[in-house]
């Protein structure tokens, strides 16, 4: 059992949890994830480590409620326990030692970007952040990100804050088109966003990394549920990734495989919502 020592509501559908998990806290590196189970009959879901505090023995995760499991997790309160919290899994993010890195976070993706930005800054890398959301109120962790970034640029679909448009618009217009020298882009968020970033940087041959989020079961290389195609080769995202070279990822396949259980997920979520409403 892993106790929730702190909870923060970041948006109505995005919650931050600081969890008591001393072993994971000591080990986790930026880019790695944990597998969490909430109830005895529940699914195992992967969530990226957003921060660690080895001294206190805690690990921070940020979860966006998109279906049954993430919603059940989102409703937990301080003092309650997570049944399972296994990790850290996956390869740590490869980090540059110098130069300028642009980190792009969309939705919950801002959380996994944080430790990467922090680590880059501590190595003396210049970091620029770009965050995006539908509207201002859905933007998360901007202050935290600002601590590690020289500058944080914002894009909102409705223009309620920053540039009206997508993160890719900001990336192109405010950085690439201005001739800003960029050594690497790291984008984490919804698959459509990561794909758009990949397409935006491809013409410039600008090295871009994304953190794929395929459906997983064990997270240790045992099942192959998480397989994706990178550079024409099958890779297991949980052990070979989850971070890959965006320009080599077969996004069509990744998107398609992500929808494998769309019908079942709807059944589970609808049943859950009906139960909660009771």
């Amino acid at each position: 059992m892993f106790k929730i020592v702190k909870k923060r509501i970041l948006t109505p559908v995005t919650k931050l949890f600081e969890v008591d998990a001393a072993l994971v806290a000591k080990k986790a590196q930026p880019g790695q994830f944990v597998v969490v189970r909430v109830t005895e009959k529940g699914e195992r879901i992967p969530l990226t480590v957003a921060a660690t505090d080895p001294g206190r023995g805690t690990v921070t995760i940020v979860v966006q409620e998109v279906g049954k499991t993430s919603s059940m997790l989102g409703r937990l309160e301080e003092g309650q326990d997570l049944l399972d919290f296994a990790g850290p899994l996956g390869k740590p993010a490869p980090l540059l030692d110098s130069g300028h890195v642009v980190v792009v976070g969309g939705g919950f993706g801002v959380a996994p970007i944080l430790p990467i930005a922090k680590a880059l800054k501590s190595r003396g890398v210049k970091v620029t952040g770009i965050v995006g959301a539908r509207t201002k109120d859905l933007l998360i962790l901007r202050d935290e990100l600002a601590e590690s970034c020289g500058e944080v640029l914002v894009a909102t679909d409705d223009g309620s804050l920053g540039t009206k448009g997508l993160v890719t618009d900001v990336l192109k217009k405010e950085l690439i088109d201005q001739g800003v020298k960029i050594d690497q882009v790291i984008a984490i968020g919804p698959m459509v966003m990561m794909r758009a970033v990949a397409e935006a940087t491809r013409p410039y041959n600008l090295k871009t990394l994304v953190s794929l989020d395929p459906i997983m079961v064990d997270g240790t290389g045992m099942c192959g549920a998480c397989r994706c195609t990178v550079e024409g080769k099958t890779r297991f995202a949980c052990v070979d990734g989850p971070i890959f070279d965006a320009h080599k990822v077969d996004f069509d396949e990744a998107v398609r495989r992500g929808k494998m259980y769309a019908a079942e997920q709807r059944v589970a979520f609808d049943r859950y919502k009906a139960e909660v409403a009771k």
Partner: protein
Amino acid sequence: MPIKPRTSMPTQEAEARKRNFNEVALGYREEDAIAEAARCLQCKDAPCQKGCPVGVQIKDFIKAAKTGDWAAAYDKIKETNSLPAVCGRVCPQEEQCEKLCLLGKKGQPEAIGRLERYASDMAMKRGVNVQKPGDGAPGKGRKVAIVGSGPAGLTAAGDLAKLGYSVTIFEALHASGGVLIYGIPEFRLPKAIVAEEVDLLKKLGVEVRTDVIIGRTVTVDEVFAMGYEAVFLGTGAGLPKFMGIPGENLNGIYSANEYLTRTNLMKAYRFPDYDTPIKMGKKVAVIGAGNVAMDSVRSALRHGADEAFVVYRRTEKEMTARAEEFEHAIEEGVKFHFLTNPVKFLGDETGWVKGMEVQKMELGEPDASGRARPVPIPNSNYVMECDTVVVALGTSPNPLLSSTTPGLKTKEWGGLIVEEETGKTTRDAVYAGGDAVTGSATVILAMGAGKKAAKAIHEDLQERAKKA
């Protein structure tokens, strides 16, 4: 005197059982067990015992069974076999003890496995007494770590705990049992039995820490730093093999590991009461012909498939599945396509698998394994329709441990290199056994390896204490 046929074991009717996940074999009633025990000749040299990888004293346990003394029979088996309720269900007896049974020379061999199962089930039902080792036990106050809770790890843990060692099992998954819990289905090995065995170990004082991935959560070096004096690696061979043919990542194509893990560990057959889904295919193709393939194809039927079939590039003769599983699969209506090999998967417009192109094969010269090598027949390709595919072509050891443990050497294919008799690896105080060393093998061989390593660990630690 003609030899009486072996006493048959009641099973669920094929038509009913192929739609539920309850155990297929119902087990003997007491009169069946006693009748079967009565067939045993009590041979002087007990040839059966030479066929048992852990040397169960078969003759003596059956002697007790003849008189209906099930407690004595169980204790006898337990002397050498730490998981008899499991082995009685899943061991390939026809290739081990029963193969050498004298009765088999003229008729049907003694049903040793069924009796083992009955004796253990009776013991479990009555409650097994666990005796914790006393203060004077040789291992008192010394810590040993076991990595992985499959049969190899459970056996090593049990033997060491009985000697008084403080044993901790570190398990990557959220539940203990290894393949027994995530791979072998409920209808062949009820999970309650595995849980009971693990509980007995806990009563013996073994600590089980799930959610700890050695190599990631803590390394082997850190385990030593935590005060453990020896480490046993029973990490299995969990890495699935795929075929590497076009279309393999289409939706609806599973590794057997994923298909069975969703089904067994995550209980997808009870979706949506359990949250983890599985594709309930209508036409399910399973590639391969070992136990894993049989378990997958029979699970597919139970998930409601109209048709579930096996595609195998060799013939019935070369199949590695237990005879009983093959027979049960046929009774349940599984179709077998031998000498058939997929070369390509075909998808529909949404990216779901809709069929596979296969090639007919013929058997050629024997290969390195001694089995006839399948050779493709030119221009024999055709398409088989299916909406779900399970690839059951074997597994290899996960490189996670070898890549994070300095000094730990493996063979080219990933198997850990050990000294056969002791399980000693190339790294001091680290031992290994089971599928992690041999590649996919059997429950009983994994247990045997766990036993040998436990003995070696005990001897080495006592030796070290003497020197100190």
